[in-house]
């Protein structure tokens, strides 16, 4: 009774490429809000001092928890926007979601000096340590974990190729607009070119001699489906496409 090894027809990104610390993931830590920066009319960046933060990899996320006086708690996963650094600070960039219990609090009630709790970082699946060429595609606030990667590349002056495609409705909706350089192609769907991300935007990354990309896609489910299918159509292997979707 020997089991024939099961071989799935396709394999996707190898799990466990990046070791995750279980200890930091299970401990709630204090995080003190030190700065709020407006990015777009709907989006702000929240900077926190987290004295016990053990560092993270670009692309990882954390769980943020708020607690009411009566003990009621609400918690949500958010991607880290900041590059890993040794300042003891982290940054989150959040959409103001209509009716959002946690994002609504942070956007309308929270002020500098307030304290929340975080645990993490969590999951190494979507992380990019900077070791392989990165093709990054994000829409809306899906650009947040990708910006952590871009900031990481710049901060360490990595020679690893990195290309970023970021989709937004208008220039005013483009998060981190001032930070993009030649590595980034903004795709505006309701201004200028007025079309969604298409194969011809990405095709120059798939010419002969182009890097062997690790692709990271982040955005709404419909955007993630669209972008990942474009990548497959251009020949990107499915086992080198990592997707982070949000509802």
């Amino acid at each position, binding site marked *: *009774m020997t*089991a*024939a090894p*099961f071989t*799935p*027809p*396709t*394999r*996707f*990104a190898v*799990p*466990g490429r990046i070791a*995750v*610390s*279980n*200890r930091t*993931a*299970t401990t*709630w830590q*204090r995080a003190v809000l030190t700065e709020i920066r407006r990015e777009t009319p709907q989006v702000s960046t929240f900077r926190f001092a987290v004295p016990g933060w053990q560092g993270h990899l670009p692309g990882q996320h954390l*769980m943020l*928890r*708020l*607690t*009411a*006086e009566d*003990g009621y*708690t*609400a*918690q*949500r*996963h958010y991607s880290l926007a900041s590059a890993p650094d040794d300042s003891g600070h982290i940054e989150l960039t959040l959409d103001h979601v209509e009716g959002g*219990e946690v994002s609504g*609090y942070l956007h309308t*009630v*929270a002020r500098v000096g*307030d*304290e929340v*709790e975080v*645990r993490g970082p*969590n*999951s*190494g*699946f*979507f992380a990019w340590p900077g070791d392989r060429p990165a093709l990054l595609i994000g829409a809306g606030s899906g650009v947040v974990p990708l910006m952590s990667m871009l900031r990481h590349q710049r901060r360490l002056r990595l020679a690893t190729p990195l290309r970023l495609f970021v989709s937004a409705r208008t220039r005013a909706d483009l998060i981190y607009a001032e930070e993009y350089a030649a590595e980034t192609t903004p795709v505006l769907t309701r201004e200028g070119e007025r079309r969604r991300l298409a194969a011809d935007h990405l095709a120059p990354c798939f010419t002969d001699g182009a890097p062997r990309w690790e692709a990271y896609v982040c955005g709404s*489910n419909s955007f993630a*489906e669209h972008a*990942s*299918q474009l*990548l*497959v159509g251009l020949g990107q292997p*499915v*086992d080198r*496409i*990592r*997707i*982070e*979707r*949000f*509802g």
Partner: protein
Amino acid sequence: MTGHPTRGFVGRPRVHNPGLPPGQYDAGTDWPVLSAEVTPRIAPRDWTLRIDGLVAEERTWTWDDVRALPTSSYEGDIHCVTSWSKFGVRFGGVSLDVFLDAVRPDPAATHVVAYAHTGYSTNLPLADVTGGKAWVAFTYEDEPLPAEHGGPARLLVPHLYFWKSAKWLAGLRLLDHDEPGFWEQNGYHARGNPWEEQRYAGD
């Protein structure tokens, strides 16, 4: 696990909901898609389910084989580790007991690893998928399960966090030990019981 109060946070008006595990919120009509991989488009005729490992008789079922088996349904709630819960959903499929009865598990088998056609995997104690607690599900609200939610067929283990309910289910292997799957290797809990908030390894 009680937190430190956050100034000014009152939260949503709350009605005590005994169906909501700790740390979860009601997602209402939303059903977020949280796959980490490219959604595979698997035609039912290309889909198969294999059960092997510590069993008396390894078996592979085709779509038609599975559809000829007696069906049953799950009506209840589902809970995602990212903190949403969804109430009153209805899935139809075949109880995993039907498949396991056919392969006759070895008494030494204690765990299963469920595999997807994409290469995704997740581990479960055998006791969590027997006794009417797990299904191979292929309908949602009486319609074919959409591809983005794991169609044509997914594992359904509704009493555990939903990452255990592997989409695009391809096989189950019975083992005499626990073996971490995809998210479990990425820091998540080996079992994932929402009522005990088993989110991450060490919880």
